[in-house]
């Protein structure tokens, strides 16, 4: 079969994974076309708010210095919300240089400029409608107007990846495999943010907060609702969003925006966003089936990267790093396939082997059961323990003229009285198993 190839590699989707794949091919001096459906870079994309420097540095080397971020993240908080307040654990490191906030429009815009400087041919405003398949091999793509041919196609088309579904590499997600998230971008002036979060005024400090807990009166009556709230400081905006399992939402007939509106009035969150003017509202899915729901990652002439492959760690809100590195690895495999003039599924299995050696499949494997385990204990995590922590801290901090040891004793006995010991035991086992999974993971 004689095909007139337009390029060596076609990459579909210009999010972090697609851009990384394209850069990695261009660095090998091969012709690569990067196709994106949106008119402006990153304008279909949303996330919590921070990218990780180690992955960007691994892809870009010194060129990372060209990227303008908003704020460095120097403070990470994990918090449990209860009805009237919260229990928060903060890790602060002013020397940290590992994560920065940046809006997706700005991230993708700058990465695409860098990609072009390496020779990537960028085509925006172009929806890929389907793949061109001949003799069971992907040989190109079809847009609304024309076909492009290349011996290798990399699918970086995000969580909805219609293309890998059409190719039967991936099955439809079930609601329980998905977190649906909604977010607001709230504008405040820079000084207000710095004063409120106790940050220096030179953008070298910023906060990321992740909250568990759903025991508010407005959410009482909803069952087994596992949700996570996030907040990031940008230069003159705050991102506040919440994600919940789609199956839980569906069973409870609950809309994610209802939860977002409730979160905004929580006594621990409302003061942080006070006066913020909403300039954008967005929604996006997070695939969280993880290792167990991973699609087939390659086939004849094609590889799948980033969110399209479900490469994400939703416990830690990490995704762009998986996207960037899986893209880079797929790009390298494409170069090897070109060098060997072999584009078969067999040859491209190299991609999976390389992923297995990287943190991507190691982490995905270690976390393969964690989400399920946390879900199975979602009432404990979201309701029971946040309330117990609250009771405990009321004792520690409330000088209420009752002997402390009496209160501690009562608290301790109530722990076993309020909750069936079997449930406590199950909690302990589930959390222990999570810890063991990570500790003895790959």
């Amino acid at each position: 079969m004689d095909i007139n190839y337009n390029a060596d590699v076609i990459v579909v989707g210009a999010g972090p994974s697609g851009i990384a794949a394209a850069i990695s091919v261009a660095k090998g001096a091969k012709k690569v076309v990067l196709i994106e459906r949106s008119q402006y870079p990153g304008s279909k994309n949303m996330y919590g708010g921070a990218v990780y420097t180690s992955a960007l540095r691994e892809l870009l080397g010194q060129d990372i210095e060209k990227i303008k971020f908003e704020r460095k993240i120097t403070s990470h908080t994990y918090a449990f919300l209860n009805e009237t307040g919260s229990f928060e654990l903060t890790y602060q490191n002013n020397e940290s240089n590992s994560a920065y906030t940046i809006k997706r429009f700005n991230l993708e815009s700058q990465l695409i400029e860098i990609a072009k400087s390496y020779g990537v041919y960028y085509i925006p405003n172009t929806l890929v409608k389907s793949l061109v398949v001949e003799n069971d091999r992907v040989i190109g793509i079809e847009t609304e107007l024309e076909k492009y041919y290349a011996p290798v196609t990399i699918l970086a088309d995000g969580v909805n990846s219609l293309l890998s579904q059409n190719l039967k590499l991936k099955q439809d997600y079930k609601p329980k495999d998905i977190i649906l998230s909604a977010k607001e971008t709230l504008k405040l002036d820079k000084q207000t943010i710095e004063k409120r979060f106790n940050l220096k005024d030179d953008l070298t400090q910023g906060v990321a907060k992740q909250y568990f807990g759903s025991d508010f009166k407005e959410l009482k009556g909803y069952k087994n609702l596992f949700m996570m709230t996030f907040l990031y400081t940008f230069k003159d905006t705050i991102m506040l969003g919440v994600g919940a399992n789609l199956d839980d939402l569906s069973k409870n007939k609950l809309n994610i925006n209802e939860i977002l509106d409730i979160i905004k009035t929580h006594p621990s969150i409302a003061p942080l966003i006070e006066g913020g003017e909403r300039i954008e509202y967005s929604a996006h899915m997070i695939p969280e089936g993880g290792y167990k729901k991973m699609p087939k990652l390659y086939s004849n002439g094609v590889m799948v990267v980033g969110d399209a492959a479900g490469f994400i760690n939703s416990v830690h809100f990490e995704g762009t790093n998986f996207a960037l590195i899986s893209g880079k690895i797929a790009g390298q495999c494409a170069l090897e396939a070109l060098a060997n003039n072999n584009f078969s599924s067999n040859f491209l299995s190299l991609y999976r082997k390389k992923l297995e050696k990287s943190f991507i499949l190691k982490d995905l494997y270690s976390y393969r059961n964690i989400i399920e385990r946390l879900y199975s204990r979602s009432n404990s995590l979201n309701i029971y323990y946040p309330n117990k922590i609250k009771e405990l801290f009321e004792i520690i901090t409330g000088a209420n003229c009752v002997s402390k040891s009496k209160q501690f004793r009562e608290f301790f006995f109530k722990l076993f009285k309020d909750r069936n010991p079997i449930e406590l035991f199950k909690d302990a086992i589930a959390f222990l198993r999570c810890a063991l999974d990570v500790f003895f993971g790959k």
Partner: protein
Amino acid sequence: MNNKEKNKKSIQDKLSNLKYNANSEAHLKVDIKKCLKCTSKPCTFICPAGVYEYRDDINEILVQYENCLECGACKVVCPYNSIDWQYPKSGCGIILKNS
């Protein structure tokens, strides 16, 4: 106002300052025959943009595709696979610059 009405209003508010490049063709279509079998109609309460509305007077699902945020949740949650879910045409649909 009950919770559902409040949420509808809240979503309308939030959509009001979003930017879209209008798509002249519907990118979301439902198969009404399947929808008639569907008792819970999850699309009508899951969508973060309130795109789907069940009108019992005409027994139809109205799809305001122009408001779509392109998240994909309706497709995943639909129990009858009734939604023909496509992306808007090249360059059309939601434009996010602050997310």
